[in-house]
Every structure is written in structure tokens, then in C-alpha cells.
């Protein structure tokens, strides 16, 4: 345990903050999905840090499952984005306001 666990937690929090900022300020839905991926990665960093801290492999198992869920989410999400783009001709979330009515 050369690197203390607080370093992993700090990095995780900072990466998560970057992801949140991206989701809140960007308009392009593709970039928003990338920022969601970044947030999932931030959580993975925290898991890995704790797995190293407690010398337990269970944290790494959770990272494994998070990655699987992320892959499934990206596959379905990108298919949705392509379908929406075919239908509405835009990928900007402030123009996709049909549910507001």
C-alpha cells in the first residue's frame, strides 16, 4: 500500500466532479454520455483503491460488473441516440424538448 487510500478517494471525487460538470453544462448528448462513462470510471477508481486497502478482491469484482453494465448502457444508449438523430435531426439536448409539451 504505497499510495494511501485517500489519494484514490480524492482522485475519484475529482473525476466524478468533472463528469457531473460535463453532464450539467454540455449540450451534445454524445459528450454527456462520455461524461457518464467518466463518472462510472471515477466510482471504479474508488472501488479499486479500497480493494487495495483491504486486500480484498471483492472490490475488483464490482468493477468488473460496473464495466459490464457500462458496456450494455453504451450499446443501448448509442442506438437510442442514432434513432433520435434519424428522427429529429439533432443531438443537442436543449432541442430535444418534445417531452416538455
Amino acid at each position, binding site marked *: 500500500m504505497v499510495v494511501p487510500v485517500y489519494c484514490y478517494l480524492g482522485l475519484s471525487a475529482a473525476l466524478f466532479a468533472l463528469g457531473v460538470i460535463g453532464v450539467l*453544462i454540455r449540450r451534445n448528448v454524445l459528450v454527456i*454520455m462520455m461524461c457518464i462513462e*467518466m463518472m462510472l470510471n471515477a466510482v471504479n477508481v474508488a472501488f479499486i483503491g479500497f480493494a*487495495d486497502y483491504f486486500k480484498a478482491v471483492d472490490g475488483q469484482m464490482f468493477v468488473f460488473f460496473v464495466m459490464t453494465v457500462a458496456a450494455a448502457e453504451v450499446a443501448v444508449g448509442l442506438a437510442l441516440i*442514432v434513432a433520435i438523430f434519424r428522427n429529429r435531426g439533432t443531438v443537442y439536448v436543449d432541442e430535444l424538448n418534445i417531452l416538455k409539451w
Partner: protein
Amino acid sequence: MHGLQMIFLVLAVVALVSGGFVIFQRHPLRSALWLIVNFFAVAGIYLLAHAEFIAAIQVIVYAGAIMVLFLFVIMLLNLRQPEAEVRFMHLGQKVGGIVLAGFTVLLVIYTVGKVALPPGKSAPLGLGNTESIAKLLFTDYLLPFEVTSVLLLVAIVGAVVLAKSRLK
């Protein structure tokens, strides 16, 4: 400072800077390329934390498969023109978003800081990393593992259905 700590610091800085570039690049293609840099830096951090298998999976699945999917979609949509300039209406939203994110993270740090962690263990992992993960995966985590395969199947079917039929 220990050498490994220095490597951790460099990787963390690379991850954070490339993460910042992901957000503040105009064109989504450049965001995607910076996100690949971010994933590689995080994979290096996994290596430092003795998670070699997860680091390999990170590079293969995230930096490989997922980002290729992103790049395919970006090029498929053919978004030539970059995102429009900041309109004044959005400026308040942006500042508010940054402030809100910072506040959330400060709250999380405060809460985590109040928790007293039990002392960590210094004994090394008994098995090789991949071997111990495989053992756990096929014993204690067998049911989640199988459920995961069903989840992937559902994702495949969903993606095919969405790609084939046009939304009316």
C-alpha cells in the same frame, strides 16, 4: 517521495487534465479522443493498485470497444460543425452546473472524511490477481455473473431492435 507515489501523481494529473479536455472541447470527436487518454491513465492507476486484470479489461473494453463504438457513432452522425458558441442564456446554467458539481463533491469529501476507516491490511494477496478474481467469480459471484450475461444479451437485442426500426 516514493517512486510509485510519483507515478500515481503523474497518472492522476493526466487523468484529470484529459477529463477536463473531454468537457471543454468543442468537437465531440476530440472529446472522445481525450477520453481514451483518460481511460489509459486510469488503467495505469489500476496497475499501481495491484489490479492487473482490471487494468487489462479497462484498456480492452473501455478504451477499445466502448470508445470505438463512440467514434463510430460520432462519424456516423457526421457532425461536421462544432457545437455553437455559448449563448448568454446558457452561461448561467454553466456556472450553476460547475458550482453545483463542486458543492456536491465537497459534500461527499466531508462525509467520507468523517468516516474512520478501519486499518488496512498489509498482507499481499495470496493468489495471482486473475486467478483470485476467477475463483471468486465462479464461486461467490456466480449468480451475478450469469445475470450479467443475460444483461448483455438484453443489450444486444435492444440495440438491434433500436437500430432496425425507425422511431415513429
